[in-house]
């Protein structure tokens, strides 16, 4: 029995076939892609995703500001801005807690980049948008609820 073939068959139902092919090494991932944190991004809940990022039990912090709409009419495009006023912020991760894969993005900041990122995310349903910030070797978190009237994941 060919192990690779098994893998392909097993995974094909769940994830997209492209992702599976990458996982099984059928497509040649470039070296840069090998660094992509696959376990964290494919985790199905926030706890596992945080674990994948190496974060455990981040402390609530008032120094993190999340700017997002209270009500998003279109879940496919939800503007989110995260500002961290914590000194020595080295990374910011954004989660949409009820998405199929909650981890949306993780940003590593270096060389003078301020604790700020702005982006647009998809949200499947009303959920907390959570930011996890690493600063000075510790992790901090903050969350904001965004109500979604039309989901943006799947169709």
């Amino acid at each position, binding site marked *: 029995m060919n192990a690779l073939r098994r893998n392909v068959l097993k995974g094909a139902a769940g994830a997209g076939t492209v*992702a599976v092919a990458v996982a099984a090494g059928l497509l040649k991932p*470039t070296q840069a*892609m090998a660094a*992509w944190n696959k376990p964290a991004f494919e985790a199905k809940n926030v706890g596992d995703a945080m674990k994948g990022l190496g974060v455990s039990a981040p402390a609530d912090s008032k120094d993190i500001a999340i700017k997002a709409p209270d009500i998003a009419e279109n879940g*496919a495009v939800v503007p989110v801005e995260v500002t961290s006023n914590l000194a020595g912020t080295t990374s910011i991760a954004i989660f949409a807690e009820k998405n199929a894969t909650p981890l949306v993005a993780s940003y590593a900041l270096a060389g003078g980049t301020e604790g700020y990122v702005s982006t647009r995310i998809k949200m499947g349903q009303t959920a907390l948008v959570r930011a996890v910030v690493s600063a000075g070797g510790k992790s901090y978190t903050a969350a904001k609820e965004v109500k979604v009237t039309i989901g943006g994941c*799947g169709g």
Partner: protein
Amino acid sequence: MAEPMRIRATMAGDVADVKVLMNHPMETGLRKDAKTGQLVPAHFIQEVTATLNGKEVLSADLGSGISKNPYLGFKVKGAKAGDKIVVNWVDNTGDKNSAEAAIG
């Protein structure tokens, strides 16, 4: 396939405000094609890196939860007008793109 990317960088005090707009479908792999009922394969940007004068200032891992045609905004301290910003991305099929702009 690699379509152009737009970068705008402006100085605000001693901080450069950089805005990047990438062109990408960002398919999650969970969506079905309305006509065929088949799943649309996942196709999304996985990594974005930004450099300022050749020095890395931001490296982002993106998931499929980022909206179509991703927007990315960040701020870099200690930059000055005329400095060069270069942004690269790689998606899950190995496709890549790069663009550069001078801070204005």
